[in-house]
Each structure stands twice: as C-alpha cells, then as structure tokens.
C-alpha cells in the first residue's frame, strides 16, 4: 500500500511533465510556422518569375511580358543608405549618451521618448514626414523617405547601443582612466570598441527592420516607375512596388510582386544572418 502510492504519483508527475513539454514544443513550432509558410508560399509563387532580368530590367508597361524591378531594388538600397547615414550616427550617439549618463534626468526622458517612438505605428511616422518634408517643398522625394526610415531606426539603434555599452564592465573604463586616458578616448577606444560587435548587430537588426517598411514610404518616397537616383525626386522601393503590383488587376504583375516579396525576404534573411555571424565572432576569440 505504502509503496504503490508514491510510485503512482511519480508516474502521474512524469505524464504531466511530458504533456507540458509537448505543449511548449507545439507552441515553439507554431511560433516558427508563419515564417515557414510564408517562405514556402513565396518560393512557390515567386520563384518562377525570379530570373536575371528581375534584377536588371526596368518595369515594362502593362501587356508586355517580362520586365523587372531594377529601379525598386536600387531605390530600396538607396533608401537604406540614406536612413543609415542619418540613423546610425544619431542612434549610436544617443545610445552612448544614455549609457554614460544612465541616472540623469535628460537620459531618462530621452530613453522614455525613444521607447515611445519605437512603438509608434509606422504610418504615423510617414504622415509626420509628409507634413514636414514633403508638403513644404510640394513634391515627394527619396530624402524624405530616407529620413522617415531613419526616424524609425534611431530608437532601435539607440537602445541596442545603450544595452551593449552597459555590458562593458566599469572596471575597463576605470583601467583606461587610470592609464591617463581622457574621457573621450576612454569612450571611443575602449568602451565603444569593446561594445562594437553588439552595436553592429543592433544596427543590422534595425536595417533589416526598415528594409521592408512600406507605410513610412507611402507619403514620402512615393514610388517611381522610372529609374531615379536623385535625392529630391520620388524614388521606387521594393515594398512600394510590391504593393502597387499586388493591387493591380494584371496576372503578370502579380507574379512579379511575389518575386519582389521573395527578394525582400531574402534581403532581410541575409542581413539577419550577418548579424548572427557578427555576434558569434565576438565570443570567437580566446576565453577567460
């Protein structure tokens, strides 16, 4: 009697444990399911339209077969470049300030506001950019699009930079100061350099995030059927092109939109992979 009761309870506990583990495994699979399904669908629908011409050719008028998204691809890369040129220095600088003056009043205000900005719907960022960058000059432009994307990037980069700099032990800062390093040199050559792999990862995650943004571009970069690299002219972008092709009534354009979506996903995947690699190589050298 006394020996059976505990054995049964152990069996019951094991069964409960197995059930719970199974539930979490199902949840974990469900979490990755959307990506797998999207990837599968995009490959099925888009791969057939994906050829060399897609990357090199310009869009063709309705009715003509073939054509590609060379302008949209170039436009996306250019918008990313503009956004990074503005967003990375400002974001990293802000992150350094937040980390070095963590207790200050200004720092906590900036930290709070950047969290709010981070959660702001991207369409709101787009409308804001339209009001201040498009309306006064009366035309859409690549620059306005880039700035709108930069506004989305800055809080991401700032918080990532802050977290990474905080991970640098204070003892390293002290060691540099005790060697007679001025504060600026301590921040740049010791603290920032030690945190650099993490900051690069944060920056790449931010780039991946904005690469596919559509809403901030709707009222700023606007889209362009022609080749353009001008900062002051409307410019095409992959998400915009996908949007306009997908809502068009033409079968030809639909498959191009699928291919565009596949390329966009591949771009984000590659950036994420680079980010992973950079993070890993941080721990690659030596041990302690």
């Amino acid at each position, binding site marked *: 009697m006394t020996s059976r009761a505990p054995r049964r309870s152990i069996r019951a506990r094991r069964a409960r444990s197995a059930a719970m583990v199974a539930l979490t495994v199902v949840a974990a699979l469900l979490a990755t399911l959307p990506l797998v399904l999207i990837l599968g669908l995009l490959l099925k629908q888009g791969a057939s339209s994906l050829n060399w011409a897609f990357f090199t050719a310009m869009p063709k008028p309705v009715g003509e077969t073939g054509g590609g998204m060379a302008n949209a691809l170039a436009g996306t890369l250019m918008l990313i470049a503009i956004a990074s040129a503005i967003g990375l220095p400002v974001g990293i600088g802000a992150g350094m300030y937040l980390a070095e003056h963590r*207790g200050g009043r200004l720092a906590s205000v900036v930290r709070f506001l950047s969290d709010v900005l981070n959660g702001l719907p991207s369409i709101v960022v787009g409308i804001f950019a339209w009001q201040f960058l498009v309306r006064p000059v009366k035309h859409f432009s690549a620059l306005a699009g880039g700035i709108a994307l930069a506004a989305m990037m800055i809080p991401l980069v700032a918080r990532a930079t802050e977290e990474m700099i905080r991970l640098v*032990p204070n*003892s*390293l800062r*002290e*060691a*540099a*100061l*005790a*060697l*007679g*390093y*001025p504060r600026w*040199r301590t921040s740049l050559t*010791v603290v920032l*350099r*030690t945190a*650099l792999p993490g900051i690069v990862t944060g920056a790449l995650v931010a780039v991946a995030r904005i690469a596919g943004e559509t809403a901030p571009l709707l009222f700023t970069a606007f889209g362009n059927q022609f080749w353009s690299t001008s900062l002051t002219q409307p410019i095409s972008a992959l998400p915009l092109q996908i949007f306009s092709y997908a809502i068009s009534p033409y079968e030809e354009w639909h498959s191009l939109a699928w291919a565009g979506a596949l390329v966009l996903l591949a771009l984000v995947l590659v950036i994420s992979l680079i980010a992973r690699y950079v993070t890993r190589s941080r721990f690659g*050298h*030596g*041990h*302690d």
Partner: protein
Amino acid sequence: MATTEPQVLATDVAATAVAAPAANALISVRALDAFFGATRAVRDVNLDFLEGQVTAIIGPSGCGKSTLLRCLNRMHETVTTARVEGEVRLDGKDIYERSVNPIEVRRRIGMVFQRPTPFPTMSVRDNVTAGFRAAGRAAPSRAEQHAIAEWALHRAALWAEVKDRLNDSAMALSGGQQQRLCIARALATKPRVLLLDEPTASLDPLSTQKIEELVYELRGDVTVVIVTHNMQQAARVSDRTAFMLLGDLVEVAPTSRMFTSPSDERTEAYITGRFG
C-alpha cells in the same frame, strides 16, 4: 556642519604639528578627507610614502584603504558624488591644485586593480603599449612600440610566457598572466609610483606568489603602494605598513615593527585576528 568645525580645526592644528614630510617622501598626504556624497570614507589622513619603498595599507573591508589609494592618482573623483579635501603632494607639488590636470597625474602614477582588466579588443602587445600610445602626441613607430612592450613585459616577469603570443588576444591569457599584463601596461609609461589595489584578490596561490615576487623586484626603482586585506602578504612584500580602521589611519610603521610590536592596541587586536 557648524558643529563639526571646531573638531576639524583641532585636527588641523595636530596636522601642522606633524606636517613636515619625511626627507625621502615621494608622496605626502596631508589632512586628507574623501567623501562619497555625505559619507566621509577617509578621515583626516596624514601619511608619507617613501621613495623606492613598498608601503602596504591594511585594514578590514570598508575601512577606506582603497579609497585612500584612489585619492593618490585622482581616481576617486571619477565616481559621481565623490569628493576629496586636503593635500596629496607628489614631489612637493599638490596634485589637487586647480592648475593640475588629473590626466597628467594618472599618467605619472600607475594603477592595477583587484581584477585583471586587459582591454579585450587589443592584442597582448597593444595592451602593454596602450597607456604609452595615449600619452604621446605623435604615434610611436612599430619598432618603438615593440621595444617598450618587451621592456615592460620583462619588468612584469611575463616576457618569457608571452613572447610568442604578442599578437594574440589578451583574453587568451590566464588570470595571473592577465594581471601581470596589467602591471606591464602600468609600467610601460615608466611611472614613479605604482598603486596596487588588492592585486592578488582574484588569483590562485601560485599567481599570487609571482605577483609578490614582482613587487619585491620593483622596489628601489618604483615607489609601490599596495592595498591588501591579507596581512601575511603585507608582511611579505612591504617595507612599511599602514593600518586603517573606519576611515581613520590608526598607525603607520616599518612592517617588521608593525607586526611584532604595534603601538596602538587596535592594530594589535587586528593583526592578532581578534576582529576583521
């Protein structure tokens, strides 16, 4: 505040009575108070550090020994709310004078901390020359850097172990090697004073022994101040020992006398293990 004033005056008078620094003092501390916010961590310390000698500062945890050490190269003030009052004369000149640049002070006084702090992004060689490179206006040549690194690593008794690994990451060294690397880095700028803040607290006995031998080797050329909670270590490496308690300097004497016949009963209680 007003109530403490007469007391401060009284100690000032006492300080002037003993103020004349010893003839061979390289650093003389006078009426030194160190604060964290409103807390006074070091109280009215008067102490000479003699040139070429090793001085140990001992005392229980929280007695202010590390704080006193950090006042000697103006590292104390790098902590927010920290503040120093009083004088620290290096070669007769007060390092807390308005015209003195703390960065210059720290370049002339080396410091090594409780845990090894090699810069993780730099190679062994670049770690050693880091302070040296920061001090000069023009970038030193590679040959010059190598010569300095070799010299400093020899001084720190590390050359034989790392001479084939100068381009490796400093993080690949063992803890004891990393600490000697930090000593080499501090020595590379040829400071006259080396401050050691419990340099062996995180090391194994063998590494500890190597550091102690090194400190013994350095005496004569460099004036060493070592903070330690380990009384045996103080007895082994130092010429003079200072005992601190609750922010006060209780007693300072030649090490042999300190450990055989201390003049203050609190010192005797501490070194015989009755508290702390």
